[in-house]
């Protein structure tokens, strides 16, 4: 049995056997009166504009114009200038050579002498296909200065004719060079030179017969 249960039992026994109850006094002290405080209701007024913040002093002037907020100039005073010592930041200056971007022109006359002139097959551009009796034209290379030719070879890979020319030649007459296959007898091909005619180069079409 705990203390509160014991007290309650004692009160019950007193009321049953002694016919009386305990009357207790509850003193009312003045300390219980409500405390009245004088509260000032005057509000404190504070500025609603946030304080201007300095980000970096280099913003003081921008192209001779004052840096401004919508309300006022941010910097009204000259920023403090501090000096840093660079005495410990010495660096070696190295030279990057840019002289490699120059070039000289070499004389390649001898080199070019070993390179042939190229002629493509122009047969497709003949409006009237050249006709030979007993033969058909396989290819036509033009124009070629016949009397200046040192040697020639057909590049079977590209179909182009390679022609090595004499660089000192004075010849000037242009020719067509035709590759012709004979239809009769054993299969064979041959080369045929034909002078370029005036009519061809005046645009009147071309024919070889």
């Amino acid at each position, binding site marked *: 049995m705990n203390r509160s249960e014991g007290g309650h039992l004692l009160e019950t026994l007193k009321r049953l056997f002694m016919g009386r109850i305990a009357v207790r006094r509850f003193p009312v002290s003045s300390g219980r009166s409500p405390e009245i405080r004088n509260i000032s209701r005057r509000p404190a007024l504070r500025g609603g504009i946030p304080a201007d913040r300095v980000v970096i002093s280099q913003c003081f002037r921008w192209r001779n114009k004052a840096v401004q907020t919508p309300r006022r100039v941010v910097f009204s005073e000259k920023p403090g200038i501090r000096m840093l010592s660079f005495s410990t930041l010495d660096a070696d200056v190295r030279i990057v050579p840019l002289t490699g971007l120059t070039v000289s022109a*070499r004389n390649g006359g001898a*080199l070019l002498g070993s*390179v042939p002139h190229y002629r493509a097959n122009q047969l497709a551009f003949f409006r009237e296909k050249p006709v030979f009796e007993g033969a058909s034209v396989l290819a036509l290379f033009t124009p070629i200065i016949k009397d200046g030719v040192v040697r020639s070879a057909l590049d079977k890979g590209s179909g182009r004719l390679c022609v090595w020319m004499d660089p000192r030649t004075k010849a000037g007459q242009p020719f067509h060079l035709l590759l012709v296959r004979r239809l009769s007898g054993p299969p064979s091909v041959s080369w045929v030179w034909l002078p370029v005619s005036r009519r061809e180069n005046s645009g009147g079409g071309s024919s070889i017969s």
Partner: protein
Amino acid sequence: MKSKGDVLVAKSVDVVLGYVLVEEESGSFRGAVLLTDHRGIPRDFRYTDPISPSRVEKVLYGGALDVYLKEEVILGSLLGAVELRPALWFCRDRELLRSFRSRVSSPVLVLQESPHAPLDHVGEVLPQGEGSVFLVQASPLAAPLRVELLKEDGARIQDMASTLQQITETMDPLEPFSRMRKALQIVGEGQENA
């Protein structure tokens, strides 16, 4: 050209044609200039060794590297080396056109093949676009040439077409570019083997 009967004979006129080729391959720049007569016979040929800019040079020159090397270094060196003065210059690179033209007194043409069918008659000039590009039917036995030039030279296109028509009687005006490329290839192979 003058005709002897019905056959063409080359004139003895000593016309000089200039061809310039400047190209970049695998980060290496090189170029060549070839001067020929009206038959394509070489009169002068100059070429440059390949230039390969370093990584630092690429960074320092930035986007100007390509233009600087092609125009200032290579084209300038080539044109400074030749002694003859061609009546007509040809190149393949249209980006060189303005710089090229400012260095020479004769017209410069960007000369290329065209996929067009032949025009109606030889000598015909067909403007393309805004007037600085033309199709020129120079030869009866070839597709028309695609010719581009500066607008300032556009008024002279008929004269140039006439010159092109004359030289196609004895040569293919595009062919020297093939020879130049082959010659540069030989130079490159020689340097690799060295």
